[in-house]
């Protein structure tokens, strides 16, 4: 699932981040979440959501071509990935994390954040999926 956001609806609850790490890593560990919530306080008093737009920059930079596109989404092929972590720095939104095993991880499009966001601030981007 490709994501889009409506930041003005976000309340900063971080539910998206907790469910993301449970779904993808089986752990309650939001520091490893594949999206980020940043409060802009006290002024202007809003939240910014950094998420994977499936822009493909990481795929372009990966020297091993380990990140591949399928149906508009980019996946890391861990059988090819050499843990060089060049992709981590390349992501314009800073949403590739390094896991404890030393591998990079990026949004898998699982859609759990969309399902559980209480505010409908993270949404499925059906338009750009052509649905």
């Amino acid at each position, binding site marked *: 699932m490709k994501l889009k956001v409506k930041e*003005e609806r*976000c*309340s*900063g*609850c*971080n*539910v998206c981040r*907790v*469910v993301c*790490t*449970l*779904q993808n890593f*089986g*752990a*309650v*560990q*939001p*520091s*490893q979440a594949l999206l980020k919530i*940043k*409060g802009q*306080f*006290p*002024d*202007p*008093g*809003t*939240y910014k959501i950094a998420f994977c737009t499936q822009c493909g920059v990481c795929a372009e930079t990966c020297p091993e071509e380990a990140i591949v596109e399928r149906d508009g989404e980019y996946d890391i092929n861990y059988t090819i990935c050499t843990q060089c972590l060049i992709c981590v720095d390349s992501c314009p939104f800073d949403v590739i994390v390094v896991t404890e095993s030393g591998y990079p991880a990026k949004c898998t499009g699982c859609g759990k954040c969309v*399902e*559980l966001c*209480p*505010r409908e601030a993270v949404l499925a981007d059906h338009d750009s999926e052509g649905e």
Partner: protein
Amino acid sequence: MLYGYAGSILKIDLGTGEKKIENTPEKMAEEYLGGRGFVARLLYDMIEPGTDPLGPANVIVIAPGPLSGHLLPGSGKTHFGALSPATGGYGDSNMGGHFGPALKYAGYDCLVLEGAADKLSTLVIDNNDIKIVSADTLQGKGAIDAEKELKEQLGEDFQVLTIGPAGENRVVYACISHDFGRQAGRTGVAAVLGSKNIKAVAVRGSKPIPVFDPQAAQAKGEEMYRVCFGKPGFKTWTPYGTASITGWANEVGAFPTRNFQTSYADFHHKINGQAIIDRLLITDKGCFGCPTPCGKYGHAKTTVGSAFVEGPEYESIATLGGSCCLEEIEEVAYANYVCDQLGLDTISAGVVVSFAMECFEKGVITAVDIGREISFGSLEDVVYLLEKIAATEGIGKILAGGVKAAAAVFGGGSERYAIHVKGLEWSGYECRNAPGMMLSYMTADVGAHHNRSWALGYDVSESDADVSELIEAGAGGSLEVSSPEGKVDHVISMQHSRPLYDALGICRLQTMEIGFETSYYEEVYELITGRKISWQEMLSISEKIWQLTRQFNVKHIEGFGRSYDYPPLRFMEEPVASGPNKGRYIERKILDKMLDEYYEKRGWDENGIPRAGTLARFGLA
């Protein structure tokens, strides 16, 4: 292994700089759950009788609970406790935001601070890396400004607690501030932090919390959110948050107005939830894990000043709006902001300021004492007094001790309308036609606070309706006299259920406001911790904690007993001045009867002291 918990307790002696990391005792987790349970147990064991609340021998315990930081609604709560400088007895305060979860991700179920640093410092906890650094540059800074500065310095992923000038100056109702608008407001925990020379605590945690059955816990957590999404109150209550009760509180004559002279404010429409939405709101701001964000973050413009501010929530509306008579929502919000920056609890500060206003009106204090004339309804006067209090300057020096201490200095009969119990100022519900709520305030361990038992809905409706149902139903015509019959049992039961959330580290608003079922907590607790324990058994733990905090007061307050459980004379002798409960009050003999029944049911003697057999029954002897 202790699933669900972070696993360690971090103890720091601020005087010597010594840090100890101990395993969280399994037995304590089993017997006291966490949060309020850990706070009560550790304070009871660690503080000697005769300790000065503002001396280095006092101890601060900060504890999220076993459910904090996990995937379930409202998992962002943290409990703070110390020997209270406001009451001299058991002090604690609960706070939302993101601090508690971060503390757990850093590996700690509990942070214990002893001793005092030799100069103003910031405690920085970056997982296992713990430092006490100078806070020179933050001295005298507003709590919000200090948080912003520390976040810029350390990084956005640090969760920060700060105190304002009021905490540095040991005002006994100074609050700990976090996330630009969340506070541990009550009982003066920030004055204790100030006395330890700690301006701020910053935590970054990046570790996982072990879960017994992650897959099943995730599925249960997801289900809990979906159930919340399906509650009618999810859509109707959330936009207004706690301010939604303002209209109802007025309809039922329970809105503290003019220093509790009356219980109805004819201007309440101008300071309610709708006014916030129409005139202030920028965004809804939630705590960690919250599906129903009650925080209303906005911007307020007044003739005195303008500011970004979270709130006002209901309590600030009641005390700054109602009790001080600020008639416009912008004014209430601005006064709220001033409290937030200075690091003052809006509840106590609002009650203290309105007390000073009434004292002036009655000629008990003069313009010379105060430095100017003051009057109800003046934002300028409110801000003037708040600043004096935080600086402990002039009249502020006396007011910084709270209404009980100030009335003792002012005299002139002012103790009749010094609105407090045990030295803690009364929060936002006037009770002269609410015997159950009155008893709740009288018997709360920390003093006049509503969060232990909120029996007002029961007083009015004689039902267990949740808040959104009460608001929906309205007061309905003229109000009957609320009977004291059957209220004691209800209060006792609420004194177990509501504080239980504080022991689990979760928010109770999903249950209290929109009717979320408690059975889910029982189920998710088992999946997260691997330990099966029924809600009923958890309530028994909460009851034990209640006995322990009572005993704490017996241990620390000389002469403690029944005389500490009465409301101010105003509520027992003076009729409500206007509104739906005009002419009403509750005679002392009615309250005495309720207290007798309450003590009996608690297993306390007629002076309110737990009997030896009672303590033994709870394993506290």
